[in-house]
């Protein structure tokens, strides 16, 4: 809400208060000051000066040395670069010490070896709207030496954010009342006569729940014309555009008192006013030109012709408003129930200063006051004659009730920082009154105060948290399973970072197109994908079922930035619908890794290699403390080389490479490998060892064997045979060489040579050579039998 400081000052004495103090006052009242805009000239040290002489600067072509009269008895020498003046003109002069907008202070200086004791100013330099280039030429009759601010209006516009629980602050009177409470100064009186009222037979309320109170008064013979300067200035000071005197008065009263009013052209009304719900699909043409199809829930101001004159509390109709030819008006002031106004405003996307206040709740006791105040202004500014009584239908709703303040609970909550007398004094200042039964009567404009805690809030707010002591203590709490999961995740994150991967954070809403890049732990159908109902854009329409698409997008971005090596990971939630036909959303957590580009940093040592899938396998193994990771081929739609990732026969994730076609499409120049792992399982795998293993007491021995076998035999088959054999002396085996020769010269092109090293040991004694040979022979025979390998 915009508040003019000059306007505010008509309600309470703010003299001597700096903007900073007022800013703090609002801030600690709970009203956020979002902006402070000063209009006009602030400084007293900018005065009217007459230019008596102007000669060329001896050392600068574009400067002149002027002698100006600022009413000090002697002339002041000022160097000036402007060209638009002539000797004898009166202009603003900032004297040394004057502070200009932007915060810099004028001093005495020497410009190119010539003294300059001040500054002659352009309009923009002293905070006035930008005018013509050059110095601001003042009227010839301006009095020399007079502060220029007195020639122009000065005001400060405060942009305030009022929280939704405080509609009583949505007016200058309301804000002033709050400041007066905080400053402990009186609010200046605002005399508004209580109007004569008459229970009306001319107004019919068909929807009393939505409109408990409706008042109207007719004024005949008004002259619709331009508002006087003071009124236009008030409205302009808070950014409103003056329209005509009648409309301006209703706007003025709204911002003065917080009660929205509406003026109808009486000539356009047929018979009595009827407040009714709209018919289903009834059309409404608003005064801003927009048309709306209404529902039964919307409230209309209508008449006996059935015309929709106004969308109650939101906006007037295009047909019924005041125009230049209007002579008779009907002025509405009413109380509309907030919920209905809010629904209508949202449904129609129509918002106004009026709906803003009604949907937060206006003061039911202010309805007639505002009407009376407006009538007085209309008669003054537009002439005419008002009916002697205001027509009233319905009654003011009672929204407040006496509230009990529990002194013991107050003391506990405030940490005994305020005594009851002081607390009660705050409530009294806020307009509450202690009743004989000890409860507190709440003023009608504070319907937000309904419970003990609401009174505590007021006391805490006015007392200030600054005045509450700080207590540094708490209770002991056990770690939760979430703590354990978090700790495991941090271990994994740190290990991955230590392995040279960058942690990413991608947005959890992805596009439908990105769904083709998902690599979920379990394959998905389209019905498993969760889509938001009204996405902001196509790019953010789907809850990610997998982190892989996000990492691919990040990789694409980095490739465009010429990144040579891509080593990315992200951890977080993924989403899927697990209910088949029924919506049953399931959230789980995964770790996703993407590798591509150079496997090693390059340099003068010239070791370079393109990342391959074994690098990814190695990272996974290192991540899990060097444990053996197995890839079991399993096709994945949209990818090649799809594999299940296994550890100790447990599936812990999925691996794949993007299809070469997709890689080309995304401008990748080397293969892109991705993996998505089940974070829940990884966390469990981090549960270190329970006891250490004794170190071997006796030496072991190794035997190497190179075997020739068909090119397409997977290594896993060798491992399976060795594992199945379960030779008790064989403690481990490792593949240390794979040799192929596509030319067929050294080994047949359709064959490969795979070399293994076998380690034999017996924990209780040293093995004899013959025992090792026998065991080794058994291994070789098993391989021959199982795979038909030839040993080389």
């Amino acid at each position: 809400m915009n508040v003019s400081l000059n306007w505010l000052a008509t309600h309470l004495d703010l003299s001597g208060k700096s903007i900073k103090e007022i800013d703090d006052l609002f801030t600690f009242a709970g009203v956020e000051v979002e902006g402070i805009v000063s209009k006009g000239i602030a400084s007293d040290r900018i005065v009217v000066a007459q230019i008596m002489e102007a000669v060329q600067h001896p050392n600068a072509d574009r400067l002149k040395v002027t002698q100006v009269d600022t009413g000090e008895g002697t002339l002041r020498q000022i160097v000036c670069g402007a060209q638009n003046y002539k000797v004898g003109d009166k202009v603003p002069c900032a004297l040394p010490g004057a502070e200009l907008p932007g915060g810099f202070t004028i001093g005495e200086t020497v410009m190119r070896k010539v003294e300059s004791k001040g500054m002659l100013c352009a309009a923009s330099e002293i905070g006035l709207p930008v005018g013509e280039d050059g110095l601001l030429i003042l009227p010839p009759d301006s009095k020399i030496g007079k502060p220029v601010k007195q020639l122009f209006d000065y005001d400060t516009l405060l942009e305030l954010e009022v929280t939704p629980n405080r509609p009583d602050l949505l007016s200058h009177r309301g804000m002033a009342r709050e400041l007066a409470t905080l400053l402990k100064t009186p609010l200046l009186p605002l005399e508004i006569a209580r109007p004569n009222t008459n229970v009306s037979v001319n107004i019919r309320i068909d929807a009393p729940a939505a409109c408990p109170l409706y008042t109207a008064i007719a004024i005949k013979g008004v002259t619709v014309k331009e508002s006087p300067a003071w009124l236009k200035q008030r409205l302009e000071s808070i950014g409103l555009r003056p329209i005509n005197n009648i409309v301006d008065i209703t706007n003025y009263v709204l911002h003065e008192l917080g009660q929205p009013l509406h003026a109808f052209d009486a000539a356009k009304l047929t018979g009595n006013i009827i407040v009714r719900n709209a018919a289903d699909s009834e059309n409404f043409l608003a005064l801003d030109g927009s048309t709306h199809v209404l529902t039964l829930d919307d409230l209309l101001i209508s008449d006996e012709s059935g015309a929709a004159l106004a969308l109650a509390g939101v906006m007037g109709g295009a047909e019924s408003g005041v125009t230049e030819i209007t002579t008779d008006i009907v002025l509405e002031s009413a109380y509309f129930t907030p919920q209905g106004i809010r629904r209508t405003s949202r449904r129609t996307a129509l918002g106004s200063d009026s709906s803003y206040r009604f949907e937060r709740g206006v003061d039911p006791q202010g309805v007639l006051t505002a009407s009376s105040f407006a009538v007085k202004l209309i008669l003054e500014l537009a002439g005419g004659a008002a009916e002697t009584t205001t027509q009233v239908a319905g009654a003011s709703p009672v929204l407040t009730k006496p509230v009990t303040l529990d002194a013991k609970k107050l003391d506990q909550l405030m940490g005994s920082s305020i005594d009851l007398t002081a607390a009660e004094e705050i409530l009294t200042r806020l307009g509450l009154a202690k009743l004989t039964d000890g409860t507190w009567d709440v003023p009608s404009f504070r319907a937000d105060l309904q419970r003990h805690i609401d009174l505590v809030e007021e006391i805490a707010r006015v007392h200030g948290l600054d005045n509450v002591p700080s207590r540094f203590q708490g209770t002991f709490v056990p770690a939760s399973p979430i703590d354990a999961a978090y700790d495991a995740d941090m271990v994994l994150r740190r290990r991955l970072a230590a392995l040279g991967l960058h942690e990413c954070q991608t947005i959890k809403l992805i596009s439908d197109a990105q769904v083709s890049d998902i690599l979920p732990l379990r394959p998905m159908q389209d019905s498993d994908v969760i889509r938001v109902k009204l996405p902001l854009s196509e790019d953010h329409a789907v809850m990610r079922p997998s982190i892989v698409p996000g990492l691919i997008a990040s990789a694409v971005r980095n490739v465009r930035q010429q990144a040579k090596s891509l080593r990315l990971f992200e951890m977080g939630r993924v989403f899927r619908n697990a209910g088949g036909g029924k919506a049953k959303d399931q959230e789980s957590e995964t770790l996703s890794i993407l590798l591509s580009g150079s496997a090693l940093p390059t340099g003068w040592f010239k070791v370079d290699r393109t990342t391959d899938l074994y690098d990814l396998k190695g990272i996974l193994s290192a991540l899990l403390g060097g444990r053996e990771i197995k890839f079991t081929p399993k096709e994945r739609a949209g990818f090649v080389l799809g594999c299940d990732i296994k550890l100790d026969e447990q599936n812990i994730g999925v691996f794949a490479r993007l299809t070469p076609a997709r890689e080309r499409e995304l401008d990748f120049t080397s293969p892109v490998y991705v993996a998505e792992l089940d974070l829940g399982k990884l966390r469990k795998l981090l549960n270190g060892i329970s006891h250490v293993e004794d170190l071997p007491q006796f030496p072991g021995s190794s035997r190497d064997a190179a075997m020739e076998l068909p090119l397409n035999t997977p290594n896993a088959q060798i491992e399976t045979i060795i594992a199945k054999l379960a030779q008790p002396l064989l403690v481990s085996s490792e593949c240390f060489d794979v040799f192929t020769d596509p030319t067929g010269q050294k080994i047949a092109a359709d064959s490969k040579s795979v070399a293994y090293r076998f380690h034999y040991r017996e924990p209780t004694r040293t093995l004899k050579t013959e025992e090792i040979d026998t065991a080794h022979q058994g291994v070789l025979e098993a391989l021959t039998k199982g795979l038909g390998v030839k040993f080389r």
Partner: protein
Amino acid sequence: MKEPIEAIQTEALAQISAAADERSLDDARVAVLGKKGTLTLVAAGIKDVPKEDKAAVGQLLNAARTAISTALEEKQIALREIADRAALAGIDVTLPARFQHVGSLHPLTLIRDEAIRILRRMGFALADGPEIEDEFHCFDALNTPADHPARNEKDTFYFDSGKLLRTHTSSVQVRTMEIQTPPIRIIAPGSAYRRDEIDATHLSVFNQLEGLYVGTEVSLPDLKGTLEYFLRELFGTQTEVRFRPHFFPFTEPSFEIDVKLTVKGQAPRWIEVAGCGMVDPAVFEAINTSRKDNAFDPEKVTGFAFGMGLDRLAMIRWGIKDIRLLIENDARFLKQFA
């Protein structure tokens, strides 16, 4: 035999001295001391030496062997020193490294972890809840009326099922109170969603950290002390902290918290970092209804809650000017956090 021994010694010493590397030195050793070496052969002839001369010849032989062995050892040491020097001479220590890949944690992880570590020292345990929430946990139980502006489809992501993407991590307060009883002292980091267009200061998916302390006699001094301590640990022990009255549906009284920070080259200014307040009794009542008991009797139980935007904290901490940097994952940005 005196002459041949002396001749062998002289020749051997000359050979040793002339050896340019360890290999020729070894050749020299073999030539004189090897199985068929000149001195070995002469020594083998001692059996033919007359008895009275044996001692003298033996002495001569020993002296020659000692002299030759010493020369061999000295020469070997000298040759190795030369070779070592030559080997080291070729090393240019000023060449750049054989670089390793350097990884990094995301700034959001770093700031979240820092906050969590501080709050854990203060005795808070972690909690969480679903991101796809229902209206009860996200709004109703948090005293947010059905027609509250946050609850419309323009501001909140809904699903056809009627569920929604949680607009704040405050829903975890409700989730936790449903399954635990006081005292409760939890923090819940997590994602939240609002239907905001993505720009330099807004993300539609952002990250928050929620906190809740519920017990008997939890008071405003507890709220103030806890959050002052936390923010001073996070921003520095001298940091000024202020509490501005504010409004949230689920706390009363409510405050926003500012810290006074100095951005390089600017005057210190108040920067909003968190919201907080005493849990509104209406929240406890909703929890009791949901639990079907009176474990959170508003007459006996009080509490405070707080929440802050982690993305915003990261931006403040590192002077990040555009929030989108936090989701774009540009390696040139991420590397700075290595």
